[in-house]
């Protein structure tokens, strides 16, 4: 690796002070599972690394008035094992389980996964479908944005030079929603998604409400399939309706052809995975209702 300096942040304030001082000359490292690979493969990088991986104030999962708050430096393994996540938005654990392998999930963090802004990230679709909010801090200010406002392009976020993502909040009204995350990769372990999908909705008297479909690896950033969502909104659930939603989602996505798959193949995958995710979410919604009734 090209030589660099590394400072282990002692606190969030310390990290923010360093960012304010060094700005573009500094880069934040959480889990390092992506950042160190990037550094080893030789791309240009700032000369100072700020290691936030051991800041306990950025790690942990709590239920607050706003919703389920996940510290940005919470690892994927923490999310998979969280009883709160399991009870309130298990789709996040379903997505976390698909990331890398045990070793990468033990180090890699949810905040790090988001700020890489890689289109094929697995945390993105689930959180985008849950309308997650982000807390962003700098030395001078705190602000909150929707996750969709973070994503600008491949490896490009809207974070300022002095800013740090501190936590992710799944709003209270989106907890306990029937959802499903599906990923298709070329292998079962350690593979990047060719396409990944998170989908869900609420059932009101048999009709689909509040439909969410988020797609990864099919556009410059993770996206919501707005037309497919609009098509399903208010419709009764049926096999035909979700199949049509899958076709619409495939139509509105803009996948590329690369060495992993052609754009046409990815479009086919979008249609199939969207349909399956909606089907599974429906089964889960029905099961949850039966459990509530019992």
């Amino acid at each position, binding site marked *: *690796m*090209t*030589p*660099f*300096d*590394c400072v*282990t942040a002692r606190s969030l304030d310390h990290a923010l002070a360093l960012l304010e001082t060094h700005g573009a000359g500094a880069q934040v*490292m959480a889990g*390092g*599972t992506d950042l*160190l*690979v990037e*550094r*080893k*493969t030789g791309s240009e990088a700032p000369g100072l*690394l700020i*290691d936030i*991986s*051991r800041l306990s104030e950025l790690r942990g999962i709590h239920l607050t008035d706003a919703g389920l708050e996940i510290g940005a430096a919470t690892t994927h*393994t923490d999310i998979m094992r969280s009883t709160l996540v399991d009870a309130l938005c298990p789709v996040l654990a379903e997505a976390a389980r698909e990331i*890398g*392998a*045990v*070793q*990468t999930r*033990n*180090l890699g963090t949810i905040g790090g996964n988001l700020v890489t802004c890689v289109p094929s990230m697995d945390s993105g679709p689930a959180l985008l479908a849950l309308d997650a909010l982000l807390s962003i801090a700098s030395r001078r200010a705190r602000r909150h944005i929707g996750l969709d406002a973070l994503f600008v392009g491949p490896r490009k976020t809207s974070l300022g030079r002095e800013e740090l993502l501190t936590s992710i909040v799944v709003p209270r009204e989106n907890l306990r929603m029937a959802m499903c995350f599906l990923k298709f990769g070329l292998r*079962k*372990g*350690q593979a990047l998604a060719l396409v990944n999908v998170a989908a869900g909705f609420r059932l009101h008297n048999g009709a689909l409400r509040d439909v969410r479909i988020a797609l990864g690896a099919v556009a410059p950033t993770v996206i919501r399939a707005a037309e497919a969502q609009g098509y399903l909104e208010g419709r009764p659930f049926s096999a035909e309706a979700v199949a049509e939603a899958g076709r619409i989602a495939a139509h509105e996505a803009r996948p590329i052809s690369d060495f992993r798959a052609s754009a046409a193949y990815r479009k086919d995958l979008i249609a199939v995975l969207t349909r399956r995710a909606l089907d599974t979410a429906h089964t889960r919604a029905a099961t949850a209702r039966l459990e509530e009734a019992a």
Partner: protein
Amino acid sequence: MSSLIVTVNGAKRSASVPSETTLLELLREHFGLTGAKRGCDVGDCGACTVIVDGIAVNACLMLASQVNGRSVLTIEGLATKDALHPLQQAFEQHAALQCGFCGPGVILSAKALLDEKENPDRHEIREALAGHLCRCTGYVKIIEAVEEAARLLRERRAEVSSMPEIEAPLTPALERLAPDEGTCNRPEERQS
């Protein structure tokens, strides 16, 4: 530069290394522990897997500074002077290693799994080992060996629990193993 103190296989060691030094480089080049292998060096192959504070990590994806104050277990710390660890015994019995390059990493991932689950099923074993590439064995014998090791460890636990007066640690390696030869200062040991 990063100055650090780390417990490696039960022994305190210190080092002062350039900030960009990875944990893998620290172990191999500064501490002379070459059990963890450099395969891909980007987190794909698992050959560098070690256990840090109880969890399996890719040593190539951590900086040395990140283990400051923590405890690292490498393959060198697994056996005692008297006996191989049950995982190592099982790998030998099942011929689960051929060239052996992936072995230290695979065995440490398996140890992290068995420390947590004493009776994992095949699916759980495959999940735990998904981050390892082995180009020789086809994985079948590796999985059988991990199942066998889980059996051996359960038997050992049963034996220990049937001996109420004796406190026998399940993983005595850290306590019993003599610190290996090295040039690094180990301040804590000198005090004791």
